[in-house]
C-alpha cells in the first residue's frame, strides 16, 4: 500500500500507530537512562545503557514516519502537550532508588508485548513499517533475554524473590494498558487498513498467555492468575488501572518527567531541535 496523502483516515491511523509506538519507546528509554551510573555493577550499567539507547533509537525510527506525514521533531516531542502523549502508563512509572527489580520486571512485561507487537507489523501494508520491524526485532530479542536472565537470578534468592514479587504487583496492572486503544475507531482503521494485522484484544490475550505461565513458573503470584477461565485469557476493564495513558490520561509522575525532559528546550527559548544524525534509512 502506498500512503494516499489525501486520505485523512489513513493519515490519522498511521500517525496514531507511530505515536503510540514511538511514545512507548521514548518514555521507556527515559526511565532506563535513570539507571546510568546507578546500576548494581559497571557491567549492568553498560548493559542497561545499551538497552536505553536501543529504545531511543526505535523511538527515532517510529517518529521518523511522522516526519513523512509533515510533522517536525519539536511538535512530536518538545511542543506537544503532556496529555497528548499516548504511551502506556507502564513506561512512565517512577521507581524507588536502588529498586533494580523495576527495570527488570518492567523490561520483561514490556518486551514480551513488544515482541508480539512487532510480529503483527511484519506484514504491514505500509512498507516502511514492515522494513523497520526487521531492524528492531534483533535488538528486542536481546532485551527479553536480558530481562529473563536477571529475573531467574533474582528469584533464586528469597529477598530477591520478594522484591520481584512487589515489582510484579506494582507494574502488572499498568502493563495491561499496553493493549488499550488511543481511539477505538482509529484502532479499527489501523487493522482494516492492514497497518497491523491483529487487534489489541488479540494481542492482550496472547500477552497474558505468555506472561502468566512464565511468571508462575518462577513461583511468583500473578495478579490476574486464573483469568484464562472458560473463555481463555482476556484483558478486561476491571483489570485496568485508573490511568491508561493511551487516551492521554497519565499518572502523576508523568508531569514531572515531561517537565524535566522539555526543560532545556523551553528554558533556552528554542524553536527547533538539533539534528546531528541524518534521517534513518
Amino acid at each position: 500500500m502506498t500512503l494516499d496523502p489525501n486520505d485523512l483516515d489513513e493519515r490519522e491511523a498511521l500517525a496514531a500507530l507511530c505515536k503510540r509506538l514511538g511514545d512507548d519507546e521514548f518514555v521507556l528509554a527515559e526511565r532506563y537512562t535513570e539507571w546510568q551510573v546507578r546500576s548494581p555493577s559497571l557491567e549492568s550499567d553498560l548493559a542497561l545503557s545499551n538497552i536505553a539507547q536501543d529504545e531511543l533509537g526505535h523511538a527515532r525510527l517510529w517518529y521518523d514516519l511522522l516526519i513523512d506525514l509533515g510533522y517536525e521533531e519539536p511538535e512530536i516531542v518538545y511542543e506537544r502537550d503532556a496529555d497528548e502523549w499516548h504511551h502506556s502508563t507502564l513506561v512512565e512509572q517512577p521507581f524507588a532508588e536502588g529498586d533494580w527489580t523495576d527495570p527488570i520486571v518492567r523490561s520483561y512485561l514490556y518486551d514480551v508485548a513488544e515482541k508480539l507487537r512487532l510480529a503483527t507489523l511484519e506484514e504491514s501494508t505500509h512498507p516502511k513499517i514492515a522494513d523497520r520491524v526487521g531492524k528492531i526485532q534483533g535488538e528486542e530479542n536481546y532485551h527479553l533475554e536480558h530481562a529473563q536472565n536477571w529475573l531467574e537470578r533474582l528469584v533464586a534468592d528469597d529477598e530477591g524473590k520478594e522484591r520481584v514479587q512487589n515489582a510484579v504487583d506494582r507494574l502488572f496492572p499498568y502493563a495491561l494498558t499496553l493493549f488499550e486503544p488511543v481511539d477505538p475507531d482509529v484502532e479499527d482503521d489501523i487493522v482494516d487498513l492492514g497497518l497491523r494485522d491483529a487487534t489489541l484484544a488479540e494481542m492482550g490475550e496472547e500477552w497474558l498467555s505468555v506472561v502468566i505461565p512464565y511468571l508462575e513458573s518462577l513461583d511468583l503470584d500473578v495478579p490476574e492468575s486464573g483469568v484464562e477461565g472458560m473463555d481463555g485469557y482476556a484483558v478486561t476493564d476491571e483489570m485496568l488501572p485508573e490511568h491508561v495513558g493511551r487516551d492521554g490520561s497519565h499518572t502523576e509522575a508523568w508531569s514531572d518527567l515531561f517537565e524535566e525532559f522539555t526543560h532545556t528546550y523551553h528554558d533556552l527559548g528554542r524553536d527547533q531541535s538539533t539534528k546531528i544524525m541524518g534521517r534513518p534509512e
Partner: protein
Amino acid sequence: MDIETVKERAGPREFSPGDDLPEEYRKAATRMIEFHANSEIMGAYLERPFIRQAPSIDRKLAFSAKVQDEIGHGQLLYRAAETLGIKTREEMLDDLAEGRGKFLNCFHYPMDGWVETPMIAFFVDGAAMRRQATLRRTSWEPYAHAMDKVCFEEGFHVKHGEDILRTLMNGSRAEQRRTQEAFEEWWPRIIQFFGPTDDKSTHHDFAADVGLKQMTNDELRQAFLDMYVPKARKYGLEIPEYPRVSQNDEGRWVVEEDDLDWDEFFTVAKNNYEPGLGQINGRARAQEAVEWVRDVIEGDGAPAGGRSPQAAD
C-alpha cells in the same frame, strides 16, 4: 626487580603483569590509574542528568552514549589498576563511595544547566585528551592499552562537546550570554585541571622517573592553552580577565598561577569542598541502594549484567 632497574628500563609500555615490580612502583601506578578511573565515574555521574535534559533526541542519544562510554572507561581502568595487585576493584569503588577515593577537580563542581555541558564535554574532555594522549606511552602496559580505546572514544566526546558549544554560540543572544557566564565560572577550574605548577606537585618526580607520567603538569597545561584559547575565541567566547592569560614572545599562552585559587583546589583535591560533597554523597547513596543486588547475586557464578558488547575491549 629493584627500583633502580625500573628507572633504567622505564619506557613506553615497558612493564606488564608478568614483571616482578617493586611495591613502590605498583603503588604509584595504582594511585594514578585509580584516580583516573574514579574521575571517569564521577564525570559520568555529573553529566548523567543531561541525558534527560538534552534539547533534542539526537543529543539525548549522544549524551547517553557518552555517559556509557565513561563507565566503560572506568571499567577498563579499574581492571588495569587491579592487575598491579595492590587493590581490588571493589576496594576502589568502596573507597570512592566512602569519600576516600580521589578524582579530578572539575568533577567536584555541581552543574546546573545545559549551557554548562560544553564546559565539561568540550574543555575538560579536551584537557583530558591532552593528558591521555601522552599516557599511551606510559610504562604500565595495561594502562597504555586502555588508553588506546579511551582516546579513540574521547575524540568523539570532544566533537560532541564542541558541537553543543557551536550551537549555543550560534543561538539567541540570551544563549550566548549564558554560555559566556558559564565559561567564566568554569575557566579557572579548567586551567587547574592539570594541577599545580610542577614546583608544588608532590607525586610528579617519581612517576616521571619510572615512566608512568610522560609530560609535566606545566607542559600539559601549556599545550592545552595553546590549543583551546584560540578555539574558545573562535566560537565567540571571551577569555575572562582573571586569571590573567597572555601570549609570550614565542606566541604561547601563559597563565598567572597566583591568580588561581589554590586553596580551593587543595580543598577540592581532599574531597572537602562543600558543594562537591553532593556528588560524592549522591554517588555513595546510589551505590548503597543497589548493595542488595550485589548480595543476592554474589556467588551465583554468572557475571553480573549479562552480555555486554562494551564489556569487551
